[in-house]
């Protein structure tokens, strides 16, 4: 096995008595796109900044391509960082921004221009080389920041919420764009996001964080259908949580619950009787809110997507008594360890 592009070993970051990152172990595989995913304040940026060298871990070690870089200053790490604010140099042109890294590495001027142009071509902005950052749109600035980081031929590309300042359409376009750049350059990328769709769509490897700890990691195809616990499930958009009666807990997504007439046979699915509370029209489907009783006799609130075009039976309306079917194959079984109702944010 090749050495990972980067490795964090027992890395912690404490601010006073507050532990922002709590003894995490993490390997960043080469040539892949790894996302750090988690809610606001879970320590994603702090982790990325330690990797980039902007803050030293309180404890633990950081290896980059197998070498200890725990105390190496950022200018010696050769990592390309794209900041959430982009941090383009306002007094320099686009071309000079991109050529800044090669210049600091004493690359001769003609070669520098070549490299800057190459990086700008990669992001499709070579024609704007002479503009100042202020004369660019947000999406263009974002690409320049990307080109600037790529121009140093970094060992890793670190992106902190690179898409969060873009509008919804552009954000979806840029996901594909970053993937394209990654496959063209073969770069190792670490991307921080709090958007699960972004992580699912873009990652080779996704790392879920909560209160400074890693709660689950793996390929999206492995993580998505099998969230480890209720926190991960909620974060990935599982809205329904059922006790199965045999001590097991399961999560189901709204699109996998079927709302059917009371007398419909269960056919091996988990079946619950429920009362429709509310029906909200959402264009492609109806969002149905239901009150049900699970196998342990506890009251549960359920959400189901009801697509009129594929569903059988009548359209539900408020007050209806209905049956809910959850196919066994769609149940994600959860680790039963209880999650504290209010996260304590790792105060030690």
């Amino acid at each position, binding site marked *: 096995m090749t050495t990972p592009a980067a490795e964090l070993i027992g890395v912690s970051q404490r601010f006073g008595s507050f532990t922002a990152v709590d003894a995490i172990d993490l390997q960043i595989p080469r040539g892949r796109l790894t996302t750090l995913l988690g809610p606001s304040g879970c320590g994603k940026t702090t982790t990325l900044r330690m990797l980039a*060298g902007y803050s030293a871990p309180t404890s633990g070690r950081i290896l980059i391509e197998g070498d200890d870089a725990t105390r190496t200053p950022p*200018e010696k790490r*050769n990592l390309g*960082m794209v900041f959430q*604010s982009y*941090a383009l*140099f*306002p*007094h320099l042109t686009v071309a000079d921004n991109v050529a800044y*890294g090669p210049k600091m590495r004493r690359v001769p001027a003609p070669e520098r221009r070549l490299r800057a142009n190459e990086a700008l071509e990669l992001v499709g902005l070579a024609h704007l080389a002479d503009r100042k950052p202020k004369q660019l749109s947000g999406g263009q600035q974002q690409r320049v920041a990307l080109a600037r980081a790529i121009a140093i031929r970094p060992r890793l590309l670190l992106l902190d919420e690179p898409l969060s300042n873009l509008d919804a359409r552009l954000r979806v376009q840029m996901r594909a764009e970053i993937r394209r750049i990654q496959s063209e350059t073969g770069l190792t990328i670490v991307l921080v996001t709090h958007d699960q769709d972004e992580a699912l769509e873009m990652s080779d490897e996704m790392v879920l964080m909560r209160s400074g700890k890693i709660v689950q990691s793996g390929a999206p195809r492995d993580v998505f259908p099998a969230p480890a616990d209720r926190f991960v499930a909620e974060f990935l958009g599982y809205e329904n949580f059922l006790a199965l009666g045999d001590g097991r807990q399961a999560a189901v997504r709204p699109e996998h619950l079927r709302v059917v007439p009371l007398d419909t046979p269960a056919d091996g699915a988990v079946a619950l009787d429920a009362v429709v509370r509310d029906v909200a029209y959402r264009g492609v489907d109806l969002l149905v809110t239901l009150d049900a009783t699970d196998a342990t006799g506890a009251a549960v609130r359920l959400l189901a997507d009801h697509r009129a075009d594929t569903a059988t039976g009548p359209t539900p309306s408020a007050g209806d008594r209905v049956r809910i079917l959850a196919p066994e194959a769609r149940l994600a079984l959860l680790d039963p360890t209880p999650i504290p109702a209010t996260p304590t944010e790792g105060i030690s």
Partner: protein
Amino acid sequence: MSQVLSQAGKRSLRLRHPVAGTLAVAGYVVMIVPILFVVATSFTAGSTLRFPPDGFSLRWFAEAAAYTPFVEALVSSLQLAVLATGLALLLGVPVTLAIHRGRIPGKELLEGLFLSPLVVPELVVGLALYQQLMIGLGLNNFSTLLLGHTALLLPYAVRVTGASLALADPALEEAARGLGASPLRAFVTVTLPMLRPGLISAGLLGFVTSFNNVPLSLLLQTRDFRTLPVTMLDYVQQSYDPMVAAASTIVLAATVVVAVVAERTVGFAKIFGGINR
């Protein structure tokens, strides 16, 4: 920002309240009219300060330019102003960086300390410097004066450069580091260019403040080192001819030029925003 708002506020105040408006106009008149009198009399062809002037000539300008004490004092004043401004910037920029970017305890105290000369009357500072440095330590007159002026300008340097530093994204310097710049190179290639408007306005403001200062210079003067304003003050006490008016007009014109340059490069709103922040 708040400066701009308060200016807009004043403007509408003047429009809406005839009394406030009249007072404001009266204030400008009281300030500007005597200056206009001085300027007008400096062009007189006669030999007394009188209004209206007797005819028109530039002879008093020629006399002022040829009067050795004025010329020497001008050179002294320029030397002092340039050196004091340079020193204030040299000391002020690191202080600004420490206040805005440093991780030091007691930042507010430090900021307060460096702004105190704005508050403490210059005469008090002058007297203290006179006693401590000139008498106590036996420092020569020019050094004492230079220290006094530097202290006088330091708050301007800290505030004005601080205002432009506050506008710069701290991530810029980090980005430069990540791209391979040492801390020093990151400072020189990224932070310093961000500071440039602040440095220019602090420099101009400092220069004008030092050049026109009377209280400190008066208290710390000696026979062999006098600034231009102090020399002119002495001159007025002995004779009363239009030459001093001509000298004043020249100084006034130079100050206006500096102010216009400052306005063109950075703008007053920014300069004074920096001081009042």
